[in-house]
């Protein structure tokens, strides 16, 4: 029944991204046997949690979950506590600590806020895999101020080949932007490019919401000096990927969706343009004669 999972994924690709959590829960309700397939392949907004030991915030997702508990990257402890929760081997945990520090610096430099978390786990074939998570939320101070959230999920797998390492990276970015508009705000900001005389009688209230997610993959080989090279290598790959995807998101969110609105409705009078074309044709015919 592989195609059942395909149908679920196709459905999730069509339904509104703002309702992903609710829809995933409904799908699990219909097909409980496929809960793991679904949770493993549909990216959901990252949950913010607080490490009880250090008081520091971390991000929860399917990768640091064991049963009902989530592991903090800062204390390595599960919450609610687990006696036999899966943790990385001591060697990998050491790398995980360094990776968390490095990506925390990355987070501060690009996000100037937000929360980051890195989780690593051993693979059966001797290699390891990991996930780098970044999240930032902008909360509006007033009703007409824009709000938004950014969630990055970078999952990678690595296999060492002598002095080289091969990396497979799958990156998903979820981005949500919401702006509310209303007459009140128009008034407050004075003449907001509106012809005041005309618009005076109108009362307006509205919301613009742009939301969604995009996923991209890449595979690369990088030189390996010691185990910390994994952090510089994945760091460079993830930085490059986020720069590329940020441009892509900008293009799709602010370019493509706007163009489609203009494909539906034209600000300029189409009839006028049609008449102009007719006239031009006539003129061309006239000159040819």
């Amino acid at each position, binding site marked *: 029944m592989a195609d059942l999972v395909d149908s679920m994924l196709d459905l999730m690709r*069509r339904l509104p991204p703002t309702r992903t959590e609710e829809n995933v829960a409904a799908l699990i309700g219909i097909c409980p046997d496929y809960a793991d397939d679904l949770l493993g392949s549909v990216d959901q907004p990252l949950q913010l949690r607080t490490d009880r030991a250090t008081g520091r915030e971390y991000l929860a997702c399917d990768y640091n979950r064991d049963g009902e508990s989530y592991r903090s990257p800062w204390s390595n402890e599960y919450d609610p506590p687990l006696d036999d929760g899966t943790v990385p081997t001591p060697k990998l945990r050491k790398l995980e600590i*360094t990776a968390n520090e490095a990506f925390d610096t990355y987070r501060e430099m690009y996000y100037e806020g937000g929360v980051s978390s890195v989780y690593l786990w051993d693979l059966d074939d001797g290699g390891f895999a990991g996930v780098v998570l970044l999240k930032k939320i902008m909360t509006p101070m007033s009703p007409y101020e824009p709000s938004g959230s950014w969630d990055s999920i970078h999952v990678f797998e690595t296999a060492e080949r002598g002095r080289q390492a091969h990396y497979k990276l799958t990156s998903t970015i979820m981005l949500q932007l919401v702006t509310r508009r209303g007459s009140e705000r128009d008034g407050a900001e004075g003449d907001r490019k509106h012809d005041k005389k005309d618009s005076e009688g109108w009362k307006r209230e*509205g919301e613009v919401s*742009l939301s969604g997610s995009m996923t991209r993959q890449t595979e690369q080989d990088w030189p390996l000096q010691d185990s910390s090279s994994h952090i510089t290598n994945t760091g460079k790959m993830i930085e490059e990927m986020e720069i590329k995807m940020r441009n892509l998101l*900008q293009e799709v969110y602010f370019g493509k969706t706007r163009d489609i609105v203009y494909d539906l409705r034209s*600000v300029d009078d189409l009839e006028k343009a049609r008449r102009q074309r007719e006239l031009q044709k006539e003129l061309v015919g006239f000159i040819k004669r």
Partner: protein
Amino acid sequence: MDATERIQAASNFLLQSPPGEINDVLNDVRNIISDDDLLQEGVLPALREYNLAQFMTVDVPGTEHQSIVSEAARISSSESGSEERFLDPRSKTSFVFDHLSLEASDPQTVEPSSESEPFRLALETSTLTYLSAHFHDGVASVFSTQETPNRFVIQVVANKYNPTNYWAGRWRSEYFVDLNENKVSGKILVNIHYYEQGNVQLATTHEISLALPPAVVTSSPSSSASKIIALIGDEEGKYQISLNDTYQEMGEKTFKGLRRALPMTRQKIDWDKVLGYKLGAELSSSKGVFGNS
């Protein structure tokens, strides 16, 4: 989940369908529920609700135009148990609508109310002119309301589906013109879906209301109707332009505020340094520990 809950969940999915993708969603839901008998009966109310809310367009039998299937187009019937019918006021035809095949059948002529028809017709004429001037593939219907005289509903819908390039869009607007209260109120709804290697959706709502100036209401039906449509067209044009401002604000404030294009240094990160600093910090802190002991 029992059968009722499964139908409830399936209906919920259908009602969230992006423009032009109801059949794709229905196909997915069929596969997921895998009980066609249960589904066929169960999801019809959801399909009907979706079609009415989304201003589904239909070819009207015996005419060259399309009309809108919506709550305003529904003919409220006093006989219970009779089949639901919808009205195309433009051709004065009522028809039965199949919510799955989206086809109209059994056309019948309907006699309009002589009281409201002149103004409705004037509104319709102006609306159709406006439609062809500003919408690429638009459909519009103008209804008079059965219960309240002097109250009219204007509905406009424009769809563009481009599955080959993974996008679809829908513009809906609806206005209630009330000549008893001299008021126009309505809303514009835009939904865009872009889904090439992702799922990005634009959803906008814009509610508006306007008290009609006395000069507009006291004119002849045709002049009054064309003035009302001019006011609406003007507002829609302004709204479309204001979307550009909103986009710009989102791009400059929210998007940049969430993640910078590059760090303050305007350079990409030197990862060896990041790791070096951390190791250095660790070393000096452990030195400090040794120094104190």
